[in-house]
């Protein structure tokens, strides 16, 4: 993966993409480095399939119409990232999940999902919100707060919350489960 990928800020995307933007911005290869031709083709087919009304971008409703995604606890949070994305953004978004992505990139994706308000810090509120998505209402507010506080202290957070560097440090050498393979068979 090229370095510029890690710098792509997932939150600062312009919305309302034009219908033909993906063709104007070719070659995609500049952006996505190691994602090979077959994978791009497979992803493009998939994109067209998800784009039910052929607008050239996918709405979050279209994403949530995938049953297996709609029941994912983080689906609501992710739908914010995938709202109205065009094909290029679709590939960029997914490349961070790829088995081929570097550890740094994967961590960046996870950090961005965690950082709900997008200020570059995972604050206690960010964490509370993300954990609520993840566990629902099974824990009382006070219990959740105690877990968050302990995590913050253990990870060495300061007043504003966890920075990316601290987040990365806290996860140490934990094996990340992000190993997306793009099926290119059919």
């Amino acid at each position: 993966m090229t370095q510029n990928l890690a710098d792509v800020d997932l939150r600062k995307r312009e919305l309302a993409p034009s219908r033909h933007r993906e063709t104007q911005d070719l070659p995609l290869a500049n952006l996505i480095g190691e994602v090979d031709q077959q994978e791009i083709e497979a992803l493009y087919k998939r994109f067209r399939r998800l784009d039910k009304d052929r607008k050239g971008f996918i709405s979050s409703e279209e994403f949530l119409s995938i049953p297996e995604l709609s029941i994912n606890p983080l689906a609501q949070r992710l739908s914010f990232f995938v709202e109205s994305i065009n094909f290029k953004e679709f590939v960029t978004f997914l490349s961070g999940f790829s088995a081929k992505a570097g550890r740094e990139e994967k961590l960046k994706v996870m950090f961005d999902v965690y950082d709900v308000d997008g200020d570059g810090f995972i604050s206690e509120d960010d964490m509370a919100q993300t954990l609520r998505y993840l566990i629902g209402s099974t824990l009382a507010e006070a219990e959740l707060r105690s877990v968050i506080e302990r995590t913050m202290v253990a990870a060495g957070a300061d007043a504003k919350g966890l920075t990316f560097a601290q987040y990365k440090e806290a996860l140490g050498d934990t094996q990340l489960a992000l190993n997306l393979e793009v099926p290119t068979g059919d």
Partner: protein
Amino acid sequence: MASKASFMRRTSANPVGLTRSDVLDISSPLNDAASAIVDDSFLRCFTSAVDEPWNWNFYLLPLWILGVVLRNAIIFPLRLLTLLLGALVFIVAFMVAEALPAKHRTLAERRVVQFMAQIFVTSWTGMREGECVIRYHGPRPVSTANRVWVANHTSMIDYAVLCAYTPFAAIMQLHPGWVGLFQKRYLNSLGCLYFNRTQAKDRTLVHQRMRDHVADPNSMPLLIFPEGTCVNNEYCVMFRKGAFDLGATVCPIAIKYNKIFVDAFWNSKRQSFTAHLLKIMRSWALVCDVYFLEPQSKQPGESSQEFAERVQAMIAKRARLTVAPWDGYLKYYNLAEKHPDLIESQRRTYSAIISKHVVPL
């Protein structure tokens, strides 16, 4: 959910300093989400076949061009003409049939509708029913009380393919446009039942009328597509159990289309039915096998659900379809909104991990 299993294994194997990574590592649900985005087993059931290009070759290209010209300039107009003339004859014949005394009327109407179905089939195959392109296997269905026929569903053309062989009354979604007119004006005479699949009230009403229809020995054989929606003829989605708790004998029908010339799957979100028909009429031919399978009754101790699954497995095997666990109606609603419990059961897994870190206050 292999990734979730590994998530749990990982955390339990590393009890020291587990707080941070347990709470901070959200890679497992993210990976599940991304995997569903790039591929999922639901949309696969509703994917049209892709045309593999075979004609870009010095020898094949002229042949292919010749084929395109032949199909579009000669075969298609002939078929269209057959269809229009057939429809004209049908409209007149139906009016005549309606004017007959009640004793002969029903029989005549059925015969005329069957004729129209045969015209449709001819416009897709260029041949009369039973002649090599559409092959029917197994005994021809006969009308008896307490029987119901169920088939896998690929397109509305299924109904014409079956009716051309033997007329059926079917449970159908009422369609807009000319199809709806046709349904209301003509198919009523066969005792077809219509409903709107999104209206629960309609569904209970239809269920009652289905019971009445099946109990009546003089009614037409009743055909039900228990998938409730068109599937791409590669997969078979969940059978709704309505047809299986009538207490009637169920006669399975397996329909397998050969995609060699044209994909018979009607993707109603992408294509109007008219466009779908024109596509089939411009192809060389619709090739298909219809199998009438051995009638099945509910075994003692078997639930309607299990009975439905057993019949589904029979049809899927004969038509070489892969059984998918999904409810086809998911095309029309969001799974999480309808079944919030499914998200909750996933949340319980994560909450079990997080709650380990709660310190009693």
